């Protein structure tokens, strides 16, 4: 381990390429914390955005007109406004309007949601709006006769949705979903703008201290490309694993 660190020190001395996070424990800890927070945010927002998408797609099939209109309005609003301004609006605007609650440990009045939580909420809603459309197109692709068959077998609306429509719809929309979720992973770094200490923020702190801007920039880029590529690869595996024989071009 020490030899490993020494090699990067030597690299800095000889070439001027300063990858501090390989030999400086403090920078390494910052970078790792940033990476973990990015991964955690990505995981939570992916899960929440899928939940938003499923609920929204279900509500869109509702009998109540105003409910469908509300979902349509939500989609149009979140799809056609900049995600960064959404984050600002939520964190600064709504965050200010919400009441402050006493902190559990210190007893001081704290905002109801922290910046990390606001980032998660607004990014989940943003990606969720896209997911609703994606799931809906998947649901529409399920043939009417399949739904009728389920209904004639006595399935309730919820049972038909859960056991028949959804399993088929999810398979149809996986490519589009994977595309959107990769985009979501890339978008999580907008949380940087409200000082969430994720990967980008950690990198900025390091380059502010050691002025190794190009090295840190390229590191961040490589890490993001790696995360996105790995995730996309995983989704392709999932697609293959879930494949229903007889649909599409076949595996």
């Amino acid at each position, binding site marked *: 381990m020490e030899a490993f660190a020494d090699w990067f020190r030597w690299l800095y001395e000889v070439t001027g390429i300063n990858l501090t996070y390989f030999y400086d424990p403090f920078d390494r800890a910052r970078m790792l914390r940033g990476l973990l927070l990015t991964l955690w945010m990505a995981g939570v927002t992916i899960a929440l955005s899928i939940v938003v998408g499923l609920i929204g797609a279900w509500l869109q099939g509702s009998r109540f007109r105003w409910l469908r209109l509300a979902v349509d309005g939500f989609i*149009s*609003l979140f799809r056609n406004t900049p995600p960064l*301004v959404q984050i600002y609006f939520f964190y600064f605007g709504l965050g200010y*309007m919400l009441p402050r609650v006493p902190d559990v440990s210190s007893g001081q009045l704290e905002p109801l949601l922290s910046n990390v939580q606001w980032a998660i909420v607004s990014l989940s809603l943003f990606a969720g709006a896209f997911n609703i459309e994606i799931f809906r197109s998947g649901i529409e692709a399920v043939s009417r006769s399949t739904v009728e068959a389920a209904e004639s077998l006595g399935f309730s609306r919820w049972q038909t949705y859960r056991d028949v429509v959804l399993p088929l719809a999810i398979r149809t929309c996986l490519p589009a979903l994977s595309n959107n979720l990769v985009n979501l992973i890339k978008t999580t770094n907008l949380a940087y703008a409200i000082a969430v200490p994720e990967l980008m923020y950690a990198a900025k702190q390091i380059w502010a201290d050691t002025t190794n801007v190009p090295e840190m920039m390229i590191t961040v880029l490589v890490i993001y490309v790696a995360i996105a590529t790995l995730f*996309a690869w995983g989704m392709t595996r999932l697609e293959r694993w879930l494949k229903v024989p007889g649909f599409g071009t076949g595996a």
Partner: protein
Amino acid sequence: MARTHAETGSPAGAAAFLLVPNGPLRAGIDARAVIAVALVFLASTAVGAATATEGTRSALEVIWTWSPLLLWGFLFNLFISAAAMLIGTAAGVPLGVLQTSDLGPVRWLAWLVTQFFRNSPWLVLLFLCVFLIPYRFTVLGYTVLLPDWSKAILGFALPVMANVSEIVRGAIQSVPTGQWESSASLGFNRRQTLAQIILPQCYKRMLPPWMNLYSLITMSTVNASVVGVSEMITLTNEVLAAEGSRPALLAPLYGFALVCFFLYCYPIARWTQALERRFNVRG
């Protein structure tokens, strides 16, 4: 669906269709969505007004006073997005064509470049361009100054390039192979086939995703506020500071930016949807 001359397929008809919203596009702008946004905005300003203290101006007054500046900022966003789209498309089309090259290494390299810029976060690419490109060059004794916004345009053009490259590749590959074969049998070489037979068929397929991309890049231009380009959000923050940083103004002012972008991007989205539907029906 109303039949229009655009459906006769003549180039003039198609152009007219693009310029004059008719047929299915008439239903395009959905009043309900606009009303919903207006309601959200008014609600936030109402809360802002309710919490305003004596002697300070209401949120609506503040927005009204500063709207020329803020809208000027919005125009700057539109300028950045248009320039990025122009540069990105100019670079992306050749890159996409190279992705379908019959030379293995060329194809592979074009694919690699495309995937790299497609999978990197837009904000990181923006940082990369703004912080790593020097602010001035000396070429042949002339000193060229590069303001932040010009570097930001490049930062937005990179992801546009990668996405356009994918759109072009997808469109070229969606043209049936038989077209290539018949062109070859008619004595067209590869370049002629591409320029005169394949690409003309691609425009229609490329237009909706290209417009989608334009809408996305327009919304991303606010990211430039993070690196200090004085576009709408930077100006909004300055207005907030000038008004004494009253928290009650936060939601209305950011809400105003949301409304501006919505009013610009929503019609584009509806238009894109209408084009998609139309092309699917006819394709």
